[in-house]
């Protein structure tokens, strides 16, 4: 039987990818960011997940304004890193797990979560930056990846509560898959940031830290945060944090906090990172 072993939560700031790709990781500014992921890389090398489900958002790359799926599950064999306007990131092609992905799609749809199945999708920094932070710069990514794209571009995104419950449905799906697989689930995006309009540059560390605390010890508190509160308190684009709740929903209510990291800024954004594991029964 497949099982979810851990949740990884991290910002997915594009400038982090650019810094890595352009060899700037040793600069003090970027060392402050990348240094915060050294322990995480050691941790995931030990945990060795077979599959990572990565909850992320597409930033007008695979989806324009022609089609805006609220939840879209990547069921393809592979996903090509996209050219977002600066040329594609020099990272390995992302290999999917079509059998498990199809099983999850079927299971959650029958569980009344009507997500969209995607059989062809280029993936942008929202997906590849978290992989780089956790796995560094390997020639191939060390595990299979199932992308789950959540709309946070066109208001309204799904509610925190809906995301949390989808996470629970994903867990039921994974645990009904017959093959023994170790699955980690990533919630990405955030933390506080606004990159649009005259209020750009907004950061709210107090909000972010309270969110990290809630995620670790009292997820229901985070689930109750309304969209307008994210946007007012954590910036228009801070609403990406709802995606963390999908991953949180796939874990036990009580978890062990393995690791936490927070720094400001990476480019325009507060960087938050958390690793949670289910308690061993």
């Amino acid at each position, binding site marked *: 039987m497949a099982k979810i072993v851990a949740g990884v939560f991290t910002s997915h700031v*594009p*400038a982090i990818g*650019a810094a890595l790709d352009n060899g700037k990781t040793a600069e003090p500014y970027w060392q402050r960011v990348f240094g915060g992921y050294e322990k995480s890389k050691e941790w995931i090398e030990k945990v060795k997940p077979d599959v990572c489900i990565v909850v992320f958002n597409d*930033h*007008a*790359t695979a989806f*324009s*304004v*022609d089609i805006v799926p609220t939840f879209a599950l990547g069921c393809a064999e592979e996903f090509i890193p*996209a*050219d*977002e*306007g*600066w040329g594609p990131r020099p990272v390995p092609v992302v290999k999917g797990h079509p059998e498990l992905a199809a099983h999850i799609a079927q299971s959650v749809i029958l569980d009344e979560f009507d997500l969209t199945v995607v059989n062809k999708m280029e993936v942008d920094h929202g997906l590849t930056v978290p992989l780089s932070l956790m796995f560094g710069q390997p020639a191939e990514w060390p595990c299979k990846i199932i992308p789950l794209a959540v709309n946070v*571009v*066109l*208001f*309204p995104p799904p509610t925190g509560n809906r995301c949390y419950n989808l996470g629970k449905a994903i867990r039921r799906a994974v645990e009904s898959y017959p093959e023994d697989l170790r699955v980690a689930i990533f919630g990405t995006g955030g933390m*506080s940031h*606004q*990159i*649009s*309009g*005259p*209020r*750009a*540059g*907004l*950061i*709210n*560390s107090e*909000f972010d830290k309270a969110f990290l605390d809630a995620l670790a010890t009292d997820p229901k508190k985070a689930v109750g945060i309304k*969209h*307008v509160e994210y*946007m*007012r*308190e954590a910036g*228009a*684009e801070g609403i990406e944090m709802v995606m963390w709740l999908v991953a949180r929903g796939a874990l036990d209510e009580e978890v062990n906090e393995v690791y936490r990291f927070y720094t*400001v*800024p990476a*480019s*325009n954004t*507060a960087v938050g990172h958390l690793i949670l594991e289910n308690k061993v029964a």
Partner: protein
Amino acid sequence: MEKPEKEYADIPGTTIFDADQSRKGYGVNMFCMSLLKADNRAAFKANEAEYLKAFNLTPDQTEAVLKRQWNRMLELGGNIYFTSKLGATDGLSFQQVAAMMTGATQQEYADMMLAGGRSVEGNRRKSEWEHKNG
């Protein structure tokens, strides 16, 4: 019946990209989307006004794009993840475009971020900005 005020309408300096904005800005966003292809970036750079004709923009939208009025593009229905592709075509990073939208120089903006970013205090409601300016 009049539409009720949107609950996010009083966040200052912020245009939320909702269905109304999306409808208004379809052409702007699809133009920006086209810039994901290197050939299109080259064609746009070769003759910007001519290239824009295919996207049915309003005269205001065309002017905002040609003059790189980043905030106005958002007000006219553009979304930042789309308009940033125009920034990329100009060789600008997200942070450079963000700085322009705040009216700061890139250095001032980068310094503000290094110092912890723009505080939420005094930046939650439009009334706080009116107070500041009045």
